[in-house]
């Protein structure tokens, strides 16, 4: 699954509306609770165990992709 699709599913928006610059600053549904839901979905969907530091930086789609790439994850 593409990260964009995951973000769209978690926050209940169309995948077309999600791009690299989609973030917790411009998506109203992306609040603290939503962020934790997203982190848990990323962990289960991509089979990774993220650290607090990684969770802290994954506040936009671009950074989610960057962290996953560093972990060697392909989608």
């Amino acid at each position, binding site marked *: 699954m593409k990260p964009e699709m995951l973000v769209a599913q978690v926050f209940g928006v169309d995948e077309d509306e999600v791009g690299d610059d989609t973030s*917790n*600053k411009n998506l109203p549904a*992306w*609040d*603290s*609770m*939503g*962020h*934790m839901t997203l*982190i*848990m979905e990323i*962990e289960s969907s991509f089979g990774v*165990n*993220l*650290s*607090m*530091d990684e*969770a*802290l930086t994954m*506040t936009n789609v671009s950074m989610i992709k960057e962290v996953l790439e560093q972990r060697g994850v392909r989608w």
Partner: protein
Amino acid sequence: MSGSTAPANAPHQASRVVQVSEEHLEPLAEIIRLAWDPRATAEGVGRARQAAAAVNPHGEGVEVPTFLFLSGDRPLGHMTTIPVHLSVRGQRHPAHWFKGFWVVPEHRNGPVGFLLLKEALRHLGTTLSTVVQPPPRRLFKSLGLSDFGQLPNFVRILRPARVLQRLDLGANGLSIGPEWVRKGVAVAQLPGLAHLCGAAVGAGLKGLTLLQPSARQVSAVAPQTIDPVEADALWARVSAGLAAAPLRDFAHIRARYISKGDTYTALLCRSGEGLDGFAMLRRPRESGDGRLRGIRMAALSDLLYPPDRPEIGLRLLAAAERTAHDLGADALLCSPSHGSVPPLLRRRGYVRLGGNVHFMARPDGYSLDGLDLAHWWLMRADGEADDAL
């Protein structure tokens, strides 16, 4: 996700949640400077923590649990607690109010708040919260706190003309009761009418309360003068009739009021049998609510009397109104949860406003099922909700 409370000697500087000890006073002072007090220092924060520990109802000298989310040495989030005891169906339980939940602006809507709360909950037993804003309410709920609903706000006008002149009826969200009240206030605000209408409202309120129990038998004193034995005896008598409440014994009075200098005036209702009830009045401040445009509001932070003796409650209310007026307040705010209090407030001419403070709780090892907000004896001072008006 990996990560938990770091041991005190953790060598790495990764992001982590810590329970504050001596070594975290500098980052604690830093986040207090950012959020509340630009003059905060590590030394001052350390002294304040010692003072709070000295009156901790869970044990003298026991540190009050406080948590920080740290990224390296930088604090990103803060949560502290207020230790109390709860009385629930006659059983006594230790508990903590959450207080001072704050995340630096650039990390809101991220993981900081959630992880901070989750870690705090791992260390605390029963937790309680008075919370206003929806985002933290959602967080608390997701972590197991039940929302019992809003504490109602009741306001007694003490200087009608001044309040009439200052109320902003056009402001969003200002609810002042039924439509006829709103229309009446709008008319009273017409040029030249405020003083006249104010006098009429004042006379009406006086007439309403003329035949009610007066403030006789009630003395206004400093909280420091309260007798510990009398306070504990009063609580023992009253609590027997309450389903659920934070303890209002002398340990509570000492930690909550005596340690706060001259912020509060105690109102004691006495008879030959001793202390029959008490109220705590918080000195008037200018309301932070822009809709109230500088109205000086006092808060009836605490109130305790046997619910089956309403005449004592009425005497305490009358004394609170008189004392608040003497202290320069334009209005008096009271936010009781227990179902027996609002009828007394209405008898004394209080107007119900929209509430904003939600009471939330998560019990540890027992159940709160079957209790709703009206069963709890809560007042504005609980969780220090009277800090914000």
